[in-house]
Every structure is written in C-alpha cells, then in structure tokens.
C-alpha cells in the first residue's frame, strides 16, 4: 500500500481529490490537513509515502512547508494548484509531480503509475543556503505561532520534544527536529541538545575538561560540548 496525505485549505478540494483517488486500490489516505502547520506534524508522525500538497494556503504556503520537512525522510510530493504559474517554482523544490485543479483522472493515473514504478524515497538535493527558514512554526495550547528567527534565543531538545525559547522567555514546542533547524536556520549547534542564536550570546565561561557554557543576554545558561566548541570559537572569531 502507498500511504498518502492530502493538504488543502479548501474542504471541497480535499473531498474531490479523495473521490478521484478512491479508484486506486493501493492508495490509503492516512489523513487530511487544512493547513501546512498541521501537515508538518502529521508527516513527522505518520511518515506517509505521498503528500498531495496545495500551494496557496494560509500563513505557510505549500512551497514554504517543504523547507520545514526533514530532507532525509522526505515523502513524494505532488503539488496541487489551480494556476500553473507556480509550476516552475514547484519543480525547483524537487516536487515529484504537480497536478492542475480540477484533477483529471487520467493525469492522476499517470502520476500514480510513475510512483508505483519508483518507490525509492525521493532524493532532495540539498543546496547550501537554499531552503532557509524565515520562521519556526510552534504549537501553543489552542493556536499555532510562527516565531521569527530574530526572536529565537535558543532551541533545546529533550525527551518531550524540541522547544523554541524566545527572547521574552516563552518556551514553545515545535514539530521540527533539531537537525533541520540546524541546517536551515542561522542558529548555531553548541551541544547535542541545544542550538543557540549567536546574536544573544553575552559571555562564554570556560570550564574544566575543555567544556564551556554560554550565558545569554537574558542570563540563561546553555551548555557547550567539547565536540562543538571549536566550531563556536571559529564562528565567534575566538582564536
């Protein structure tokens, strides 16, 4: 079976796609999402093989959402759009395919046929500097908050998950794993479980055994491990 997720902000569009897909016996729709932020969580949890992704959605567009996904475990992405002006941009993001709405049955069949032949996980070329995140989606009790990079003090990972700590002290859980944040943001890895925004480093205390700790402007202490210390020194220009 091929597991699939539908992401579209229009309920009728989701329903229509579900109807067209129902003719393919080997496709199992695991979930539907009405926005990109919900979709990131579902993709990380359910790990679907295939994502039908609308491009124009509130707050985070389908294209922006791609850069928030783990490139190592990337599902096949099929973009859905009502206008083909986005097509070129979609393929630059290495989409598997894109479909114009309303979805044509035979065109969809071709996409699925190609997918059945090529079940290898999608290879996404990582271009340095590309796919930079402008904001990190975080989940509160009843809302989703998009935190801008300049408001992030540091990011910490623990058993309960990854949290973004902002400059005003709030701690917000995010679905994005630490290594994606490290790759696609200017945040600096200082410890196995921590990323820090170097703009807010006030002081570095040297400890025994080549260890150190960072003190932020707000007085927070973040550990520095021996493994990442040389990189930090280099980034900060310490010889």
């Amino acid at each position, binding site marked *: 079976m091929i597991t699939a997720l539908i992401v579209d*902000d*229009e*309920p*009728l*569009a989701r*329903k*229509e796609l579900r*109807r067209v897909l129902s003719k393919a016996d080997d496709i199992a729709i695991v979930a539907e999402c*009405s*926005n990109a*932020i919900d979709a990131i969580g579902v993709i990380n949890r359910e790990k679907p093989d295939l994502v039908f992704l609308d491009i124009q959605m*509130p*707050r985070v567009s389908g294209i922006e959402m791609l850069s928030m996904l783990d490139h190592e475990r990337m599902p096949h992405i099929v973009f859905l759009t*009502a*206008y083909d002006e986005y097509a070129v941009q979609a393929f630059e993001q290495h989409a598997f395919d894109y479909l114009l*709405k*309303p979805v044509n049955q035979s065109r969809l069949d071709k996409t699925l046929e190609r997918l059945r032949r090529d079940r290898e996980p999608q290879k996404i070329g990582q271009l340095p500097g590309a796919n930079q995140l402008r904001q990190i989606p975080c989940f509160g009790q009843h*809302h*989703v908050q998009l935190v801008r990079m300049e408001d992030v003090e540091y990011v910490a990972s623990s058993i309960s998950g990854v949290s973004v700590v902002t400059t005003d002290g709030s701690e917000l859980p995010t679905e994005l794993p630490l290594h994606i944040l490290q790759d696609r943001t200017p945040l600096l890895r200082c410890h196995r479980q921590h990323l820090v925004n170097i703009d807010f480093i006030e002081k570095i205390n040297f400890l025994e055994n080549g260890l150190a700790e960072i003190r932020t402007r707000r007085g927070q202490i973040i550990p520095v491990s021996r493994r990442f210390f040389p990189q930090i020194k280099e980034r900060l220009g310490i010889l």
Partner: protein
Amino acid sequence: MQIDPVGLSLVLLQQMCVYLVVAYLLSRTKIFIPLTHATIRPPHKLACYVIFSLFCIMGTILGMPVVHAIANTPAIGAVLGGLLGGPLVGLAVGITGGLHRYSLGGAFALAAGLDIVIQGILGGLMHRHLIRQGRTRALFDPLKAGALTFAGVLLELLIDLAVAKPFDQTLEIVRLIAVPELIANSLGAALFMGILIDRRALIERQSSLFSAKALAIAARADGVLRRGFNQENSMTVARIIYEETGVGAVAITDREKILAFIGIGDDHHLPGTPISSLNTLEAIAHNEVTYADGNEVSYQCSISPTCPLGASLVIPLVGEDSDVIGTIKLYEPKTKLFSTINRTLGEGIAKLLSSQILAGRYEQQKALLAQAEIKLLHAQVNPHFLFNALNTIAAVTCDEPEKARDLIGDLSTFFRMNLKRPSEIASLAEEIEHVNAYLQIERARFSDSLTVDIDIPDSLGRVRLPAFTLQPVVENAIKHGTSQQLRPGHVAISAREDGDELVIDVQDNAGLYEPKPAGQGLGMSLVDRRIRNCFGPSYGVTVASDRDVFTRIMIRVPLEAASK
C-alpha cells in the same frame, strides 16, 4: 578770433546741442536700454563703458581750441559713465577719454587728460554712495547729474591751475573757459539724464501695459481650453482675446477648420468652415508665425474680396512633440495699423493656449488611465477567481448537482455585473447583488471555515454609489484577510445612515491589514479615489485595524447622491 566768455558759452552750448541730438537718436535704439537701469551684469557694464567713452571722446572732439587748451564737454560722458556704471566703469571711461585727450597734445594735455579720469572716478564714487544707501532711483535724477558734473568741472579747473604751467597763462585761460564749461557741461549732463529717464518711462509704460493685458487675458482664459479644444471653448477664448486686445478680429482654428471667429468680418468667416487662408495653412504646415501687414506683405481675405480686414497675424498652437494642433489668428482692418504690442501679445497668448490644451489632454488621458487600471484590476483578479469557482463547482457536481447548478447561476450573475462599465453609477441593491453572487461561491469554496453576515436595511437599497465599490472591498477581506488565517473566518457587512451620509462597514476577523501590502493597495485606493472623484474629498474609504483581531473598512458616500 575774438574770444570772450559769452561767445564761448554760446559755442559750447551749440556743441552740446549736437551732442544731445546724437544722444537722443541713440536713445531710440536698443543699445540704450541697458543704460536705463543701474546694472550689475557684465555685458551691460561693457555697453555702458563703450557708449560713455564714445560720448566722452565726442565731447573732446567737438571742443573749441582756446589758446593752448580746448574748451569742451568730455565731463558729461565721464561723470555719467561713472554715475550709471559704477566706479570701475567710471575709471575705465575716464582713462579712455583721458588718453584720447592726452594724445591730442597742447600745454593742457596732461592736465586735461587727468581731469577726465578724475571726473570718471567722481561719478563712480557717487554711484557707489547712492547704491549703498539704497537710493537707486536717485542715480537718474537730472538735477543730481547736473550738480555732480558742475562739481567735476570745478575740480577740473582747480587741477588745471595746479598742474598746467605757466600759471599766469593758465589762470587767464581758466578765467575764460570757467563759466562756459560749467554751464555747458552741467546743463548737458542734466539734459542727457532727462533723455534717459524719458526713454525709461516709455519702456516701462509699454511693458506695464503689455503685462496688464497679458495678465487679464491669462486670468480670464484660465482653464477654458483645458476642458477640451472644441468650438464652444474656443469661442469663449476668442471673445476674451478680442475684448482685451481690441484688435479688429480674432480667430481660432484647429488643423482643418475654423473653430471660432469674432469681430470684423464675422459675417463671412464662419466657425465650422474649412481653413482657406494660405497664410494659415502655411503656419500649420511649417509651424511658424506668419504675418501679413498689408503693406510690405499683402493681405487679402481668402473668402470675400470686399472684406474690410487688411492685416493678419497667424500663430501656430503647438502640442506634444512640437506638432501643430491649430492656430490663433489676430486681424486688423485696412484702416488700422497692427500694434507691436498686439503682435508680441499674440505670440504669448498662443503659448498660453497651447499649454492649456496640452494640460487638458493630459487630464483626459489620466482619467482614461484610471479606467484602464480598473479594467486591468478585474482582468488580473478574475482568472484566479474563475479557476477557484470552477474547481469548487467541479467538486460539488457529483454529490450535489443542485448546488452545482446554483453556483453556476451565481457565477453567471457575478460576471454579468462585472461587465458593467466602471464609470457607471450603481444602486446599493445592485452592489449587494454583486457581492452576494461572489460570496455564494466563496462560501461554497471555504465551507465551514467562512461565515458571512449581511445586515443592510432594504430602505437603503436605492442609494447610489460608483459601480464596483463594495465587491472589491469584500474580496479583499476574504483574499487578504480571512483566507490567510488558520482559524475560521468571519466577515460582517452592514450599512447605516449617519446624518446625510451612508456608511458601509466591511469587517473581517483576521486583522491582517497592512497599509501597503503588495497587490492589495491598488484595489482599495482605486475604490477610494473613484468615490472622491464622484462625490468630493469628504467621502471615501477609511480603514481601522487591530492586528490579528479585526480589520474594518468604512465606505462613506452621500445619501442623496448628487453625482457629477
């Protein structure tokens, strides 16, 4: 030759007359104009120097030899040169005149040469003194000029006594020439200045008359042709020019026909008839002023051999890229001469009218552009809306064919309303119908995540406002508002009376309004601009917004739409 002071005085006065005749003749030419103002411009200073040096030399040449000296009048040139041109010009005139006098020789040569230099400096110093005191007009006072020259000659006589040798002989000569020179030079300088100020008064009177006429025409004709270059407006302008200039007749033409004619000969020069005058056709073809004065260049009316008009001036009206768009023509009857003022004025009027016509065309184009902008806006918006609508209809067709049918009806209503010309005025009821058709489709598209409340009393349905006012505002609220937030969207549309105004509120619960987001500003500002154009600056669109809470757009139009 018997020399006595009385005889010498008469001779010198005679010379002075020759001198003043030359001055008077010169005053009728253009080179005299710079002299009529206390000038600081180098070319004018130069003119001043040349003219007064010549007068200075002329004064010397016309002089009468008295024993070893010359009784003469170079003092006038030197003093006036300094007085009108300033110290430097005075010095230069003095040196020039002095060298000339020195070159003539005689026992007095050195003394007399020196005298002229001193007199030039004297004039210059007086110039500086009066300018510093801000009494520019006093420079032209004939009495002052006479008195100053008197002083200059006194100084001259003293220098002669001091420098020339032998003293006895000098004293004798000075005694002889003192009175004649003092009288002739002072009087000459005063009269010279008199000629100057007469000339200046003439120029000023002419130019003030000219400015007054030009201003009167400009004020009365202001904006008339801006409203369009046609027969009606041309007639108004022609009448103004006719009344203000007092010429025999005035005509305005475009490139092919007479637009307006007023004055003598209007019985056979009829507006609307094609141009037949060769002068006019030539002026249009070559973009040049043609002038037939009836004497040197013969003029004959091309329509009637008995036409009393005897002279014509044709000036092209020039539009964009120096294209001739028409002409303005001034006529005088055979019994009257064309005044220079009216000729010059005619060219000025042509420039004024040309720029008015240009401004009018520019405004017309601007209005067309604004309409084109709206059309463009619709062309940009509709494909997206159409795609989304068709997708929505496609999605409901299978399960709810009835609903699909209704949506197609809404879509058809929406496009029918869109075909209205943007300049049209619509009733509020029509605007709501347009918005309803639009909202039916958007509500189907977003299902549960969009709710809309409309609260508009039926009694307000007849209020008139520009077509395409409400729909773009509601579309903005959804496109850039509710559809951009993660929670369900809500849009409330209401209308109420407020005094003699109708206020329409469109409020969304997204609160994502930003003063200048790309693509959004155009639609909103167009709606605002069209309402203001239609009803005046006290009406239009205002925005209130609280980030992430609401955005409220308020549209104000008059209840009694006295639309223009």
